[in-house]
């Protein structure tokens, strides 16, 4: 079995894909190339709002470039595949996004991203742009306690942060309010993922790791690395509770609490499969008395063509729910 992609020069993969994104959505986004940025197409008469900027390595599409638009991001800053954008690139994104009310940076917790976004924030502050950072670190598989290590990785909860803060920004929330809100979303979100098959880097022929026919990789991230260990493959009705239980435990979710659930495909997981996963998740949560207020089921934060899925739960209240439900118009998310 081969693993080829639609690609020209792998070094141009991201920049050519950005051109394609712009061509597909000229009314929603604009792409600049040096440095690479995806910008919300401005509408005349929009009142100035706090700007939202996110980004990180590519290969996770539609994240983040597909979430630029009304009710979500103002600018996405894409790096090369699985590599952080540079500090200057992020600074350019901040400057392009700022409309005088400050800029919220939404950063997934990876060393390179944290470094480059933090530096960009410092540089922008020197130019009198107010910047706040929300660090997203929802991935339970990397919850190593307080050992001074890099901490939990940021994965699918970032979609909730972008959606909810995006909605609040449209309603005029201040930078401080948005930073608090974003942190509240992060504090109340956890994610767990598993892979049925690893991913293949552009231009490569082999997946990044092998799994035997009867095992799945638990606790994978979104960069094709191995997870925390293998478990036996099994029906969805077994795999899904094994993913969801640790999330419920980590959030200390209790009977009668409400959540927003994100059932996320990691790249090559079919829509039918994700629907089955969601059914199992709903059954599992119903069994322990937890109510799903809203669900997002689809491939939103991918690891190239990895087969697998992640489950994110966000403990929600009426404020978060209302912001989640607010209108959004981006290439990849619209309601």
């Amino acid at each position, binding site marked *: 079995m081969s693993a080829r992609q639609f690609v020209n020069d792998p070094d141009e993969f991201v920049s050519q894909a950005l051109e394609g994104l712009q061509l597909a959505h000229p009314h929603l986004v604009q792409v600049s190339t040096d*440095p690479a940025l995806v910008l919300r197409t401005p509408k005349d008469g929009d009142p100035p709002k706090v700007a939202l900027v996110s980004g990180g390595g590519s290969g996770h599409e539609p994240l983040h470039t597909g979430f630029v638009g009304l009710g979500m991001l103002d600018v996405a800053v894409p*790096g*090369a595949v699985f*590599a*952080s954008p*540079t*500090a*200057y*690139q992020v600074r350019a994104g901040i400057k392009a996004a700022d409309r005088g009310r400050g800029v919220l940076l939404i950063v997934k917790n990876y*060393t*390179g991203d944290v*470094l*480059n976004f*933090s*530096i960009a924030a410092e*540089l922008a502050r020197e130019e009198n742009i107010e910047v706040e950072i929300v660090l997203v670190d929802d991935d339970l598989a990397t919850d190593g306690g307080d050992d001074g290590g890099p901490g939990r990785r940021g994965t699918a909860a970032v979609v909730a942060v972008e959606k909810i803060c995006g909605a609040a920004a449209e309603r005029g929330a201040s930078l401080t309010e948005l930073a608090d809100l974003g942190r509240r979303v992060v504090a109340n979100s956890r994610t767990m993922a598993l892979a049925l098959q690893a991913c293949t880097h552009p231009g490569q022929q082999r997946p990044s790791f092998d799994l035997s026919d009867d095992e799945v990789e638990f606790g994978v991230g979104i960069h094709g690395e191995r997870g925390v260990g293998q478990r036996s493959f099994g029906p969805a009705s077994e795999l899904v509770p094994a993913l969801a239980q640790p999330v419920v435990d980590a959030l200390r979710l209790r009977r009668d609490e409400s959540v927003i659930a994100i059932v996320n495909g990691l790249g090559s997981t079919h829509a039918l499969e994700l629907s089955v996963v969601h059914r199992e998740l709903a059954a599992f949560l119903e069994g322990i008395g937890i109510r799903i207020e809203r669900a997002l089921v689809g491939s939103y934060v991918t690891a190239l063509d990895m087969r697998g899925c992640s489950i994110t739960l966000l403990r929600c209240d009426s404020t978060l729910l209302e912001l989640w439900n607010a209108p959004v118009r981006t290439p990849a998310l619209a309601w």
Partner: protein
Amino acid sequence: MTALTTEHARAWADRFVSVGAERNDELTELDRQAGDGDYGTNLRSALRRAAVNLADEPTSPHEVFLAVSEAFLNTGGTSGPLFGMWFREFAKATKGREVTAVVLGEAATNAVAVVQRLGKAEVGHKTMVDAMVPAAEALSAAAARGSTVPDALAEAASAAHVGAASTERLLAKRGRASYVGEHARGVVDPGALTVAYFFDAAATPQS
């Protein structure tokens, strides 16, 4: 009290660019043994940009350091942005000032502080910091003793080399090398070595 001239600063930066290119394979091999092997790629692209920026004929040491800093801030990896911020402190401290050894000592001290604030590495964590700290200390001490700029920089270079060499026997506590545990022992940290090469490049070549 001689000050760093624009010409010297420029020659220093140019030599750093060429030494970095010469040492690229060696540095990559170190990152391969105790990291992810892309150090050379990151450094090369930073130095290429630096060369382009330097071709704009900087008119002060400040502009020379800025050219190098911006090049690194435009590149990837962990080393790129950290070096970018490190050089940036040299640019800041030298802005509109006569660049004495005291000023350079101040710059190096501020610079390593920024790198430590951002990267959260202490001496002994097997990173570029292990060369930056002793280099800054040596520079400041030499300046306090009234050394000339070339002498102070030569002392910084020696100190940086000693610091870099010290990383060989360490286990990494920061960066990708920290994921490989014992495998990193016996391997010099490429970031630290680059710091030493940078100070080496300040010396006027014996011709």
